[in-house]
C-alpha cells in the first residue's frame, strides 16, 4: 500500500501563546509534530505493517517544518517531503489544499492519505476534507476505528465520529482519512529511528515543481489577532461547618445571581 500522511509543525500545546505587534509568539516553547497528526502517522504505520507498502510524510511549511517530518521519519515513515516555497507563506486552507493535492498527485499511485483531525494552532480541521474534494476521492473524516481493510478489493470500512453517535461507512481506495485520538496510541520514536531521521536528507518540492506558479491567492485575510481579554474573576469561596451548609449557601448564591 502506498500511504501518504500530511503533517504540520505546531507549537507545543502547553505553550503560553501571546501576541506582540500583531505577531503570534510562543516564546521558547518547542515546535512539535501537531499532536493530532501523531495519530495519523501511527495509523498509517500500522496499516503499512499489516499490509506492506510504504508511508510518505508530507508537510507544507517553511524550512524549519523539517522537524515535524523528522519526527514522522523517526516514528517509522519511509519517506518525507517538505513542500515549501516563498509563495506558500500565509496561505489559507483553500490554497493549502490545492498545494497538498498537487503534492499527493506528484507522489502518484497513492492508496490512502491520512490527516489528523485538526491542527492545534488554527483549530480549523478543514484541510483534509478540502484535499479530498480537490482529488475527487471519498472523505472519511473523524475516523475512530478502521474496522476492515482489504488491499485486494481496495475496500475499507470505518467508524466516523458524528456529534451524536458513530457512523459506520464503507468506501473504496483511494480515499482521504482524518483520524481522532481514539483510533490508536501513537508510538514513541525508537533510538534507531531518531538516528536515521537525524541523518535523512529531506527533499523540497517548490511551487514550480508542483506546477502551481502564480496560481495561489488566499480567500481569507486575517486583519487582526489578539489575546483574549483578561476576565478579572474574583473567586468567592463558599465556607461552612458541614458539606450540607456549604451546598445550601452555594445554591442560594447561584439562584441569587440567576445562574440557575
Amino acid at each position: 500500500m502506498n500511504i501518504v500522511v500530511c503533517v504540520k509543525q505546531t507549537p507545543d500545546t502547553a505553550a503560553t501563546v501571546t501576541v506582540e505587534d500583531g505577531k503570534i509568539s510562543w516564546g521558547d516553547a518547542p515546535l512539535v509534530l501537531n499532536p493530532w497528526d501523531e495519530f495519523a502517522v501511527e495509523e498509517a504505520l500500522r496499516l503499512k505493517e499489516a499490509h506492506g507498502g510504504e508511508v510518505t510524510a508530507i508537510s507544507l511549511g517553511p524550512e524549519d517544518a523539517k522537524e515535524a517530518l523528522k519526527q514522522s521519519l523517526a516514528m517509522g515513515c519511509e519517506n518525507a517531503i517538505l513542500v515549501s516555497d516563498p509563495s506558500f507563506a500565509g496561505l489559507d486552507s483553500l490554497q493549502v489544499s490545492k498545494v497538498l493535492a498537487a503534492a499527493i498527485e506528484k507522489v502518484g499511485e497513492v492508496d490512502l492519505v491520512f490527516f489528523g483531525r485538526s491542527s492545534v494552532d488554527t483549530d480549523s480541521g478543514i484541510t483534509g476534507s478540502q484535499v479530498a474534494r480537490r482529488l475527487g476521492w471519498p472523505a472519511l473524516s473523524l475516523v475512530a476505528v478502521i474496522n476492515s481493510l482489504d488491499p485486494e478489493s481496495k475496500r475499507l470500512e470505518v467508524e466516523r465520529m458524528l456529534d451524536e453517535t458513530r457512523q459506520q461507512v464503507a468506501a473504496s481506495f483511494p480515499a482521504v482519512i482524518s483520524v481522532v485520538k481514539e483510533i490508536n496510541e501513537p508510538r514513541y520514536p525508537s533510538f534507531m529511528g531518531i538516528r536515521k531521521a537525524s541523518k535523512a536528507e529531506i527533499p523540497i518540492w517548490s511551487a514550480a515543481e508542483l506546477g502551481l506558479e502564480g496560481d495561489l491567492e488566499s480567500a481569507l485575510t486575517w486583519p487582526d489577532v489578539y489575546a483574549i481579554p483578561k476576565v478579572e474573576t474574583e473567586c468567592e469561596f463558599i465556607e461552612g461547618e458541614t458539606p450540607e451548609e456549604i451546598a445550601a449557601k452555594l445554591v442560594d448564591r447561584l439562584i441569587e445571581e440567576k445562574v440557575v
Partner: protein
Amino acid sequence: MTNKVLVYVDHFKGEALPASWEAIGAARKIAESLGSGVTAVIIGQDVQPLATQAIEYGADDAVVAENPALADFRPEPYADVLSKAAAEADVLLLPTSGRTRELAAMVAVDLETGMAPDVIEIEVDGGLVLATRPIYAGKLLSKVVIKERKPQILTTRSRAFPKPEPDASRSGEITNLEFEVGDVPTEVLGYKEAAGGVSLTDAAVIVSGGRGVSNNPSLTPPDEITDEKDQEIWRAQQGFGLVGDLVGVLNAAMGASRAAVDAGYIPYANQVGQTGKVVSPDLYIANGISGAIQHLAGMRTSKTIVAVNKDPEAPIFRLARFGVVGDLFDVVPALTAAFKERLGK
C-alpha cells in the same frame, strides 16, 4: 433563489441542531445590514418539517432538497447540493458540527471561496462580514474576512449566538430544489447506538469530573476486583456516579478532564479541553479538576464557573466565580440534595 444570505440547517436524521436556529438568528443580523432576506437550506430525506421550523425561527423562505440517497449524511452529495444552492449567495452560514465543518469546507472548494469555522462574533462592514474566531485553543482570537469571493462561508459555534424565539405566525415560501444525485463514493452501513443525554456543546449546564473522582479513600472495592488498576477504575466509577447524580438533577451534560479520560475513567466523548470539546455553558461545575491549561482552554468562556477542589491553590480557582475547598465526595452529594430541594425536583 432570491435572498443573498443562506443558512444551512444541520440535522441528525431529521432533528435539527439547536445551533441551526442560532445561525438563523445570526444570519438575520447580517441580512439586515445587507438589505437582504434569509433563505434556509435543508438537505436530506423527509426533512420538510425543518423548513417550516426554520421560517418560525426567522428565515424568510426555505429551499428543500430531498432524495432517498440523502437520507444519511455524507459530505460529497450534500456538498454537491449545497454548492448548487449557494452559488449565487453572498453569505452562507452553517452551525458548527462535525458534519458542517467538512460540508462547508467542500462547498468552499467547489465555489473557490473562503471558509472560516467556529465563528463566535460577526460584524458587517461595507458588505463584508468580519468574523471573530478562536485560535490556539481559545488562547487568542482572530478576525477573519473573506474578500472578493462569494459566498463568504462561516460556521457559527454553538451557544455563541442567541437562539431566536420561534414565532409560529411567520410564513414563507418553501421551494424544492431541482437536482440530480450523482455517484456517491461511500456507503453508510449503520450507526452505533446513540449515547443519549444532553450533548456537551449544546448544554446550558455542564458538570465535570477530573482525576480526583477516584480518590475516595473511604471506599473499598469488592473482593473480586484484585487488580490495582481495576480497583482505581472502580473507585472512579463510584465518583463519576456522584457527579452523574448532579448531572441528572441539573439536566446537565457530563464532562471530564483529559487526565480522567487518559486514566480510562470515562470515554473520550466526554473530554472537555484543547484536545476534546470546547464548551461554553451558562454554568460549569468542575469537580476534582485542578485546571491544566489545556482544560481551561476548553471551558474558559463558560458564563459562571464553580470549582470544587481539595487544593486551595488549584489553578481552576483563578477562573472560578465560586469555589469550594473541600472533598468532592462530601460536597457533590450535598449539592445534589440542595439543588433537588431548591429546584423542587
